[in-house]
């Protein structure tokens, strides 16, 4: 298959820009001290508008995308994972964490040179590994000051209504964190910079959701493999002007693609949906769908909402408009927290049934034919409820394939067996493929 050109395709015009922004991010972090700037580490869900409120320049390194970059460099990753294991970290722990901590122990930055040492740690805590990751890094790096914000406050259904004290709990930690940041860095805190960064943060998330929404078009304007490279900018620094502007530009371009009928793959016949982080050393799986089965993956709950702002309205998943952060530090903290705690992927972390409802919504709204669930041995968080999701999707009438693997440990990926499973799974769509081919 794959030979029939039914729809026009063209590369994304902003693709090169996305690559440049990503590389600049990692270079800026490594070179920050040369410019007298501060650098910090934290997770992809850290509240990055807050450190952006510090006076002077501050650059971050977010751990999960760094771990993904390691995983893509399989030679480096293998050495990092072995180093982490030799130190005593179990092989079933978060694969991003193990790549990261392995880099620290090797003292090698996957982008070249020694592993840059951060000035402080600014993290948030939702899964069991989040704060424990940086607690270990803090110790291994000789006692880096660490602050982490517990966001497990909105975890109780019903998710549609958050009592005020839940917002206050997280916002209060952010306010304490601002005091802590000033103390450990010796910098002053500029509320106006913080407010501006908060606006960028929410706009980046909103615009990414709008981009994903455009993928409801049939045929789809974006393939998920490309989306992985695009959502990653949100995991690096949602609160930067560059990221926010990039998503504006991307949105306009994808809207134009839909208008002109430009698509992701030239012969879309099957629409798939996935789940969880992809196995980064095995992204050729997505090309395999396209080339062998004329199948496009339109995205996933993960791809859409890890860095996307969504809400459920009248049973539909819709992009969530940014909230006005007000004019004070306190109001901005509350707005940030409210935007975060209502995020469906955050809430679905806590309840398998709710996650199933969201996945069925996506399957219906994006009109998918089948679902590939990545049973991710590298991330216990994104694997929460995945088997319940499988049952729910099947009950809703969607064929589901489970693919066991890892986002960032190549040794846990069985390529041959996965391709074989995919072949057997895709056979059920052969009638549809033939039907479309005959038209």
């Amino acid at each position, binding site marked *: 298959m794959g030979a029939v050109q039914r729809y026009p395709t063209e590369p994304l015009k902003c693709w090169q820009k996305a690559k440049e922004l990503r590389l600049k991010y990692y270079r800026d972090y490594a070179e920050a001290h040369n410019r007298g700037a501060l650098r910090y580490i934290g997770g992809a869900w850290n509240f990055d508008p807050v450190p952006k409120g510090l006076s002077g320049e501050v650059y971050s390194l977010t751990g999960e995308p760094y771990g993904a970059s390691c995983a893509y460099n399989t030679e480096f990753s293998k050495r990092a994972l072995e180093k982490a294991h030799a130190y005593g970290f179990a092989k079933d722990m978060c694969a991003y964490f193990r790549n990261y901590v392995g880099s620290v122990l090797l003292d090698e930055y996957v982008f070249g040179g020694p592993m840059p040492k951060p000035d402080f740690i600014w993290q948030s805590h939702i899964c069991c590994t989040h704060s424990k990751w940086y607690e270990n890094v803090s110790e291994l790096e000789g006692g880096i000051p660490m602050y982490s914000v*517990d966001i*497990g406050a909105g975890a109780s259904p019903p998710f549609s209504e958050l009592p005020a004290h839940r917002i206050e709990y997280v916002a209060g930690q952010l306010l*304490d964190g601002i005091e802590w940041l000033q103390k450990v860095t010796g910098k002053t805190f500029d509320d106006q910079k913080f407010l501006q960064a908060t606006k960028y943060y929410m706009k980046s998330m909103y615009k990414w959701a709008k981009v994903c929404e455009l993928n409801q078009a049939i045929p789809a304007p974006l393939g998920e493999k490309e989306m992985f490279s695009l959502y990653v900018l949100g995991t690096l620094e949602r609160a930067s002007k560059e990221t926010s502007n990039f998503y504006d530009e991307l949105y306009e371009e994808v809207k134009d693609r839909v208008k002109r009928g430009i698509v992701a793959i030239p012969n879309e016949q099957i629409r798939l949906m996935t789940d969880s982080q992809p196995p980064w050393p095995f992204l050729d799986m997505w090309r395999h769908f396209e080339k062998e089965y004329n199948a496009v993956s339109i995205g996933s709950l993960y791809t859409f909402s890890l860095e996307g702002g969504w809400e459920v309205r009248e049973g539909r998943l819709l992009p969530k408009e940014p909230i006005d952060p007000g004019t004070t530090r306190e109001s901005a903290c509350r707005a940030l927290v409210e935007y975060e705690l209502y995020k469906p992927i955050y809430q679905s972390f806590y309840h*398998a049934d709710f996650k199933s409802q969201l996945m069925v919504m996506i399957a219906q709204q994006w009109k998918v034919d089948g679902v590939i669930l990545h049973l991710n041995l590298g991330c216990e968080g994104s694997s929460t409820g995945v088997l319940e999701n499988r049952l729910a999707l099947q009950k809703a009438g969607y064929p589901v394939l489970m693919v066991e693997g890892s986002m960032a440990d190549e040794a846990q990926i069985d390529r041959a067996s996965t391709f074989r499973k995919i072949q057997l799974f895709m056979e059920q769509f052969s009638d549809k493929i033939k039907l479309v081919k005959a038209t």
Partner: protein
Amino acid sequence: MKVERARETKLKKFQEWYENRHQYQKDYKSRTGKKIVGYLCTYEPEELFYAADILPVRILGGHRATDAALSSAHIMSMYCPFCRDVLGQGLRGYYDYLDGLSIAQSCLHIRQAYFSWTIHKPVDWSYYLPMPHHVQNPKRAIPFLYEELKLMKKSIEDWTGRKITDDDLRRGIAILNRDRRAMKKAFEYSKLDVPKITGLERMYISTSSFFVDKEEHAKAVEETLQELEDRQMDRRTGVRLMTIGSEDDDTEFVKMVETIGATVVIDEHCTTTRYFWDEVDETIKDPLMAIAERYVRRTPCPTKDWPRRTRFDRVLQFARDWRVQGAIVIQQAFCDPHEADIPALRRFLEENDIPTYLLEFDVTVPVGQFKIRLEAFIEQITGLEGLF
């Protein structure tokens, strides 16, 4: 070497309760007409249930691989054996007599067991308490938990149709504290040069407290204290060991350890000291606030022990007070919060001259293999003379 068996003493009661938990709970229900709520983590504020005249019972593993296997369709195999074992028992129907099920937010794994249970075996009342993780920020965590406890109290009141007063809460606190104090006193008897209580007996005491009415349990422990005072142990203490780690109620393992020239004199698990060591301050005027304070300030589970590992201070204090010669670090397979602590914990203990040995536990334990490994560990500590 003769091991004094639990059945020869008042301690027998705790073993009976441990082994016959379902029978006890069913009998309790028919005898008292009270509701029973199952819970899955020791952050559950049991005081609220006692205040409402409800019996809270913790659901521990049954250590049968066939039950845990029932979870395979619901929980991925890389989640810990404990959560799969717990869910398996629920799905099997062993707990069909429960009126409610609740969890206080702790780790992802047991949370998955809770949600799968409520999806496939719905109960009359279920409740997820968002227990805060940032317990090292009590300024924020205590007021937050206080508000959450109010919501939980109201939910229980709505369910039972009965208001819970402050006096009810004080009664609940007193019941829990009495049992905690009694258990701590019992654990003191293993501080002696010749411990008057074994690790296995202590495990039966603390784990049975999850399964039975705390007033009955406290009374039984208090009666046992009198017996312990006069007790003469007809066994050699051997190497004084400590066990540390995740959930652990593997009696077969402790029994084995105490037959190879060692006594487990103290432990740090959520089935033992981490569960009951800290009391609610009864001098705090608002009982709900006192409960919130206790659960935020208790010795934390590793999942809440950040950005500094405060739990290690308690571990070291136990090791010194009970004159521990070696520590067995027990890891439930795939338990990430503990796995994240283990390299630091082992280094910390060894820097404090306490040799460690790591063992990974599953639903069932390969006692024979572990015995050989632990004999070697004991030999490391004592030299050859310890074996004879």
